[in-house]
């Protein structure tokens, strides 16, 4: 009884350990948030669709479109590592709040020329 009682007294005079979410949020660097694709720099290579473990990404190379089912995404980050241009990212400052509806992300892009593709790939390699 006594160890628990001293614990209760310590808690009573200590500060709160909970945070007032959603008014107070706390982000760690490297936190894996929502999946976001920069369609301007996407070259539609399909590497992200090939490595995704839950198969939530579909890339149409001919039609130049990128679509993703955000409810199937498990935010593992493997696609971010596989992306050659660095345009696919799991956002950091965006806490994964519960979704209100089941929707799909669909983005239509523009076909890139060979030089543009090379420049985008190089940009990621240089950091």
């Amino acid at each position, binding site marked *: 009884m006594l*160890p628990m009682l001293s*614990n*209760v007294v310590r808690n009573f005079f200590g500060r709160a350990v909970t945070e007032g979410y959603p008014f107070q949020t706390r982000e760690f660097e490297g936190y894996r948030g929502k999946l976001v694709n920069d369609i301007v720099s996407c070259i539609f290579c399909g590497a992200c669709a090939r490595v995704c473990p839950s198969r939530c990404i579909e890339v149409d190379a001919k039609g130049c479109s990128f679509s993703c089912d955000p409810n199937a995404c498990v*935010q593992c980050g*493997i696609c971010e590592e596989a992306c050659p241009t660095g345009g696919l990212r799991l956002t950091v400052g965006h806490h994964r709040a519960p979704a209100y509806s089941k929707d799909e992300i669909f983005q239509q892009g523009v076909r890139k020329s060979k030089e543009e593709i090379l420049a985008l790939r190089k940009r990621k390699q240089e950091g």
Partner: protein
Amino acid sequence: MALTVVPFGPQHPVLPEPVQMKLVVEDEIVKEAIPVIGYVHRGLEAIATIRDYTQMIQIVERTCGICSMIHSLCYCQGLEELMGLEVTPRARYLRTVWGELHRMHSHLLWAGLFADAFGFESLFMELWKIRERILDLNEATTGNRVIVSVNVIGGVRADISDEQRTWILKVLNEVERDIRRIEKALLEDHTVKHRTVGVGVLTKEQAFELGAVGPVLRASGVAQDMRVLKYAAYDELGFEPIVRTEGDSWARCKVRFDETIQACGLARKALERLPEGELRVKASGHPTGEILTRVEQPRGECLYYIKANGGKHLSRCRIRTPTFANIAPLVAMMPGSELANVPVIIISIDPCISCTER
């Protein structure tokens, strides 16, 4: 007296996961228990035939939410051996650090549920409050609280910087101090002892013969812990299994608390000796052959059988989880106990039913 069959579960306030025990009872004493499982069967071993072996890492991690990093560690270890890859020292030490953090948070979770099983709810909240600090460590270093997803074939894909290392050592000291303080509230309490000492006794011969693993085996006097097999960085850290001889629920609880303190010490040692170097080696080619590999999860010994034939998909990936091995000792512990002690006995083996059924 006529025998009654009381179905315990699958939905019960005390159980974290659905399992049904059909208890054959005579006047409040349990005569026999028959387990019925299958409520959360997801068919993960069947998925191994339709996903690549690299995509399987994420799937294997989700076999169990609590020991997820150790599942993927075993899987990656097996594949690395089949492909002939040598993991760098820094990756091995980092895997040990995260593995021990997982062991601590798993045991604290279990201790909270154990306290809740006989109504000690405030202690349940207190233990989970300590556990939150370890989940913060996970989130800061890997990006996610529970399913950290940090193993890849050939190493790890997240790193611990030097400032993070100093911070983690400070947090580990505080966590160890808090656990030592709160341990007395659970294990020395008169009512807790009344409900756990002598309840669910498993003798040494029974435990060995029925194939018990983990703290259930070690609390009955058999000193077996798969970390002695020297995988990851355990050979360089020095390690001895923790054993008790009573074989009842109190002994299992004490073994887990002692293991948590030991895990704190192991994580601290691994962080202090963290070597410099690369995080991963490049894997080329596809695996061929078959292998049986074992690790020590918080609940016991976990065995993976992987068979590959040189293609992108594995032929067979079999997971033998520790709770699956502990069902037979559980069935043997029940006869002779009172009906009110059944929740305590079931929780004392640390049942992770999603591991059992995959």
